């Protein structure tokens, strides 16, 4: 350790003005419109006429220090040293000079090897989480499965051929640090936690008892050890306890499976935000490339592409054609598990005689 003074220094957020491209700083709050020049390239126009060019490319989110340096080299060369990342972990090179655009694009695609796209009605980058790379809870990987899915979806990323934007997400355990979107992949556990009673001393008992949403955990003494037990009937396999207490293991490499959810939306455009809904479950957790996941996603996107109308997000499209049609078009089975039994169970039923027949 150095002998410099230690934290805390409570410095707060960086001064963003130092990180803004000069045109952004100059025209802050003065932007009046934008256009998409081609997939992956935006131009924003300011009141005074200034134009800022944005080249958006898919980033893997996780990168080595060397790759970060490569990115900086490009930005230094064509962007006066400024760039940004998007809320979906895409990179955006900010360029003030139209004449630099072609070289910038070449550098991004060739030197960096990152594809342009993710703008307009395309499939953008997939929000994701730590997976086996770093978290203590994952039942599957995140960055690896994103790589596999995006390889498959590359043309949907590079082009703007969908009815509206498709925002995808994938997470590595049921907690779902990322998973909410038009299409989202979730791991599911299928058993109550296995309890390692010998290791239990490390856990504050009341905390894990309190955290259980199903009130399924109760203190118990087993072989003289103070521990907990799980009432199997009540447990809903959520894994909340596992996050709190490593001695309660929720995962199972044989039975953990993946499910796909559709129709999540945060924007209020045309209608209130919506939760995502279960499309298909029981997909095998199949590293290194999870081909079954990609196939299922493809089925959804094909149906959406074929019958979605402009500006319809996936959830809006299904609402219009009806869920029966969605299951028919995708071929996913509709099972009793598709029928909600959570807090919104009653309002998710068809409480009317309105039916497509």
């Amino acid at each position, binding site marked *: 350790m150095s002998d410099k003074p230690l934290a805390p220094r409570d410095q707060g957020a960086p001064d963003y003005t130092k990180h803004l491209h000069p045109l952004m700083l100059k025209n802050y709050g003065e932007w009046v419109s934008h256009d998409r020049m081609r997939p992956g390239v935006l131009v924003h126009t300011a009141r005074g006429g200034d134009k800022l060019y944005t080249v958006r490319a898919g980033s893997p989110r996780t990168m080595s220090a060397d790759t970060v340096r490569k990115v900086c080299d490009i930005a230094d060369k064509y962007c006066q040293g400024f760039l940004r990342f998007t809320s979906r972990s895409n990179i955006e090179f900010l360029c003030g000079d139209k004449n630099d655009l072609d070289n910038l694009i070449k550098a991004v695609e060739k030197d960096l090897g990152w594809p342009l796209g993710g703008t307009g009605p395309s499939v953008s980058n997939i929000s994701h989480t730590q997976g086996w790379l770093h978290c203590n809870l994952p039942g599957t990987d995140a960055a690896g499965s994103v790589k596999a899915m995006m390889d498959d979806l590359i043309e949907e990323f590079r082009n703007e051929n969908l009815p509206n934007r498709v925002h995808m997400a994938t997470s590595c355990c049921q907690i779902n640090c990322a998973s909410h979107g038009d299409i989202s992949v979730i791991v599911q556990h299928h058993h109550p936690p296995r309890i390692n009673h010998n290791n239990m001393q490390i856990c504050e008992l009341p905390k894990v008892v309190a955290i259980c949403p199903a009130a399924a955990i109760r203190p118990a003494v087993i072989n003289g050890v103070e521990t907990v037990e799980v009432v199997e009937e009540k447990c809903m396999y959520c894994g909340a306890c596992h996050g709190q207490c490593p001695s309660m293991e929720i995962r*199972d490499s044989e039975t953990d499976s993946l499910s796909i959810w559709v129709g999540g939306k945060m924007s209020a455009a045309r209608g209130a935000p919506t*939760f995502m809904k279960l*499309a298909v*479950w029981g997909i095998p957790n199949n590293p290194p490339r999870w081909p079954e996941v990609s196939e299922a996603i493809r089925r959804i996107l094909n149906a959406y592409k074929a019958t979605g109308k402009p500006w319809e997000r996936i959830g809006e499209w299904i609402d219009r054609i009806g869920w029966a049609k969605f299951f028919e078009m995708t071929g996913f089975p509709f099972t009793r*598990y598709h029928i909600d039994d959570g807090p919104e169970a009653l309002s998710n039923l068809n409480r009317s005689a309105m039916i497509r027949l």
Partner: protein
Amino acid sequence: MSGKHDKNKAMTLHTPLLNELESGPWPSFFSDLKEYSKKKPVVVQLLNQLEESYENRWNYWIGKVLNAPGYGGGIIARVSEKADKYPGLANFHTVRVIEPPGWVYNTDALRNLADTAERNGAGILQFHGMTGDILLLGFSDEGSLQCVEDLMHDGWDIGGSGAALRTLQCCVGQARCEMACYDTMKVTKHLTDSFIHYLHRPEFVYKFKFKLSGCSNDCANSMVRSDMPIIGTWRGPMQVDQDKVAEFIDAKGMEYLIDNVLTRCPTRCLSVKGKTLQVDNDNCVRCMHCINVMHHALSPGKDRGVTILIGGHRTLKIGDTMASVLVPFMKLETDEDLEKLVEFVERVWEFWNDNGMDHERVGEFIARVGMGTFLKGIGVEPDPRMIRQPRTTSYIKFEELAPPRMDGEGNKMPPVWNREAEAVETA
């Protein structure tokens, strides 16, 4: 007997507050009963007690139980806390009578009811109770039993009460309505007669109500007031008389058509080409609106049947509960169809009564165990038309995947995701 216990004790009507209900244009039940009380002394007592309720904002009736021999319901027995003062109200029961489906009457029958009510009790009738029954008010214990006996003799039957099947009610349907997609009266009679045992003898965990509407306008009020709404509907194309469409447009104007028909369709499946109306029949959800507005030009399709829903009831205990789809479509025409329905209902009852808790309506039961479990219990395949949207809760207990583990051995992933579709094939 002293006057105190004389049921017909003479008494002066003293109703200063109730008299306020005599003015105004709406027919006054009070004026009617006041007039009638001249003939029926017990009605004076009734109105005097009612006056006390108005004065004190307080009620003086207490429930008790009275049954006709062999029956477990149909008489709502009330005794007055003020029986000392109003001996005629010591026992003042209501007899529920099963109405003719659709509440249609010939006058002989109505006169017969009036006579029976007057002969055996206070001679007060209500058309109808909120469950659909004819209600006859104001019988002593013996009067109630005699009334039941007389009703039986004259071909009537008594209605339901308690933890039993309740009297059914249906809209006027095909008897006078062009919207009716099935024979509500016939089905109401068939179900009543088939299940009459369950109506007369409380054997359920709680009450169960059917209401039958000929179309989704739901004039029988089934959706939030019956455990099993049966609502008429159709498959395939709606009937469109394009000449009448053109007439409608000529008469009302295109703007009226747009504002009141096209843009009000919940699935926006109507469009107009010149003066013809195009219906995207695959997306029509049979809401009835366009037919209501243009009923000369449009009518339900020809392949008709019913949608059966489950679980409606009012507010106790989980709050108002709207019924939801159980059988998206079934034909209900032949005797076979009717038998299929009867068997189906029995399956529902069996599962509910075997597993429901005391005083738990079937809708509350479903809310507790989940519709998925309920469907499995009654052996019905899930269908996406039963839901507004699939689950939004990500925690699921997959029974196929879970059970063996607690016994120590692991189980393998069944090939669920690519198994054959089941529900989309259900009719």
